[in-house]
C-alpha cells in the first residue's frame, strides 16, 4: 500500500540560477543573501503581535530550521517570505529584492521561485495528486511533455507512485502532506520553505522526506524549515533560529532544538 521512498538522485535538479536568486547588476561571484529580515514586525489586526523586530540573514545555499512553541510566529514568518502577508514594519528581502517594493505583477514570479510546503497542505481539492503537482509546473508554462516526466518522478520520491490519481479527500493526512512536499520541490526552486513538512508523518517516512530535503539542499537550494521534530533538529546539527512570542531568541550556526544552557 505504501511505496518505499526512492533515492534516485537523477531527478533532483539544481535550482534555476536565473531566478530570483540572482539580483540584477551584481557579479555572480559575490552571492547576495537569499533571505534578509530587517527588524520585521507583524501585528495582526487589531492587536496580536505575531512577530516583533525579527532580524536575521539566510545565505544562499543554507539549510536552516525555524523552531518555537505553538503560536510563536513561525508560520507568520514564512508567509511573509511568500508575500502572502505584508509586514507591519521592517523589510523582507528575498533573493535581493525587497518584497515591499515588488510590483503586484511580479508576485507570481516570486512564488514560482519559492517552493512552499504549507502547514495545512493547501492542495487543490478538485485536482488529483498528479494534477496538484503538475499545476506548479503549468503556471510556469513548462511543456506538457516535461510535466509528464517530472511529476511521476517527484511523486515516487515522496512514496506516492501509486496514489497519483487520487484526489486529496482520498488521501491520508500524511499522504496529503507529501503531495504538498512534492509540489514544492518539483520545479527545483532556488528557495524552499517548509512549514512542518513532517508533522503528520511517521518517523520512517519523516526521515525519507528529510533526506530528500537534504539532497535538494546539497544541490544548491536554500531551505528554511519550521518544525517541531526535536530529534531531527538535534541530529542534523544545522542552523537553528528559535522564536519565542514573535521574537528571535536564538540563532545558532550548528544548534539543537533546545538552547545549550537548558
Amino acid at each position, binding site marked *: 500500500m505504501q511505496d518505499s521512498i526512492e533515492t534516485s538522485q537523477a531527478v533532483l535538479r539544481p535550482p534555476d540560477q536565473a531566478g530570483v536568486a540572482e539580483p540584477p547588476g551584481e557579479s555572480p561571484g559575490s552571492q547576495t543573501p537569499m533571505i534578509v529580515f530587517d527588524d520585521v514586525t507583524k501585528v495582526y489586526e487589531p492587536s496580536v503581535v505575531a512577530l516583533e523586530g525579527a532580524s536575521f540573514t539566510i545565505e544562499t545555499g543554507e539549510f536552516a530550521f525555524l523552531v518555537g512553541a505553538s503560536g510563536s510566529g513561525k508560520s507568520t514568518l514564512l508567509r511573509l517570505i511568500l508575500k502572502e502577508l505584508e509586514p507591519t514594519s521592517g523589510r523582507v528581502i528575498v533573493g535581493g529584492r525587497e518584497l515591499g517594493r515588488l510590483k503586484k505583477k511580479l508576485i*507570481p514570479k516570486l*512564488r514560482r521561485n519559492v517552493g512552499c510546503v504549507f502547514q495545512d497542505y*493547501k492542495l487543490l481539492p*478538485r485536482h488529483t495528486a498528479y494534477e496538484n503537482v503538475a499545476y506548479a509546473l*503549468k*503556471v*510556469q*508554462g513548462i511543456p506538457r511533455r516535461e510535466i509528464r516526466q517530472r511529476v511521476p518522478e517527484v511523486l515516487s520520491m515522496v512514496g506516492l507512485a501509486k496514489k497519483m490519481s487520487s484526489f486529496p479527500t482520498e488521501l491520508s493526512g500524511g499522504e496529503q502532506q507529501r503531495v504538498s512536499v512534492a509540489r514544492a520541490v518539483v520545479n527545483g526552486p532556488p528557495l524552499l520553505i517548509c512549514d512542518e513538512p513532517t508533522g503528520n508523518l511517521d518517523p520512517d517516512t519523516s526521515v525519507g522526506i528529510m533526506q530528500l530535503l537534504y539532497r535538494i539542499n546539497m544541490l544548491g537550494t536554500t531551505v528554511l524549515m519550521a518544525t517541531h521534530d526535536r530529534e531531527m533538529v538535534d541530529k542534523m546539527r544545522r542552523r537553528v533560529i528559535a522564536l519565542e512570542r514573535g521574537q528571535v531568541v536564538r540563532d545558532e550556526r550548528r544548534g539543537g532544538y533546545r538552547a545549550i544552557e537548558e
Partner: protein
Amino acid sequence: MRTKLFFSEAFRSLSGNISTTVAATLTVLIGMFLLGMFIALGSWVLSWSDQVEGQLEVRVFFEQDATPNQINRVGDQLVALPQAESIAFVSSADALDRMEQEFPELVANLSSNPLPDAFEIKPGSASDVEVIAAALEPVPPGVESVTFPREVTERVREVASVIEFVFLAAAVILLIASTILIANTIRLSIFARRREIEVMKLVGASNWFVRGPFMLEGLICGLLGSISAIVLLFLGREFALPKLIPPAIGGDSGVSAWSFELVALIILGVGLLLGAAGAGITLRRFLRV
C-alpha cells in the same frame, strides 16, 4: 498550448463541479428563456398594435361638383405622402352601394345620390393620422372636408404607447434582473471556491492563469444555458403555442413577432457575455492574494 490548458482546466472544473455548473447553467437558462419569451411576445404585441393602428382611416370627401382633375391632383398629393400606407378611392356610387347594404330602407327612399366621392387613406401608424390630415391643410380645391377619428386616434395612440412602454420597461427590467441573477450565481459558485483560488495564487499562478478557466467555464455555462433556452423557446413556439392560441389570431397576416433567428441570436449573445464577463468581474475580488 496555453489555450489547451485553459480548456482542460475549465472542463475539469465543470465536471468536478457539477452542482455549481448546473446551478449557473440553470440560471442562465431561466433568465434567457424569460427574456426570449418577452422579446418574442413583445415584438408580437407591438406588431399587433401597429396593425390596429393601421386600421384607422383618414377620409377626404369631395364637393359634389369636384372635377376629376381636382380629384386626381389630391390623389397625387396623397400618393406622395410616405405616411399613407394605402389609398383607396371610393366613388359616390360605391358609397351608395355600401349604404344600401346597411340601411336598405334609407336608400330606397332617396331621389338622388347624396354621398360624395372620397379617398380613404390608411396610415402606417396612429401618429401618422394627424400628419396626413395636416398635409391636406388648407383643404385643396374641390375638397369638401377631411375627417379622421380624432378621439379614437388619440386613444389608440395612447394605448399603443403604453404597451410599447410596458414591454420596453419589462424587457429592460428582465435584462437587468437576468444580469444580476447570473452574476449572483457565478459569484456564489466562485465564492465556494475562493480557497482554491487562493491556493492557485500561492503556488505562482498569475491572475490571468487563474481567471482563464473560470471565464471559459462561465462562457460554457452561458452557452449551455442560452442554447437550452433557445431550444425551449423553439419547442414552445412549435408545439405549445399552436395548440393553445386560436388559429384565427395566431395566423393573423400582418401581425408577426421578430424572427426567431433574431431572438435566438440576442439570447445567445447576452448569455455568453453574461457568463464570461460575470466570472471575470467576480473573480477580481478573490484574486487579491
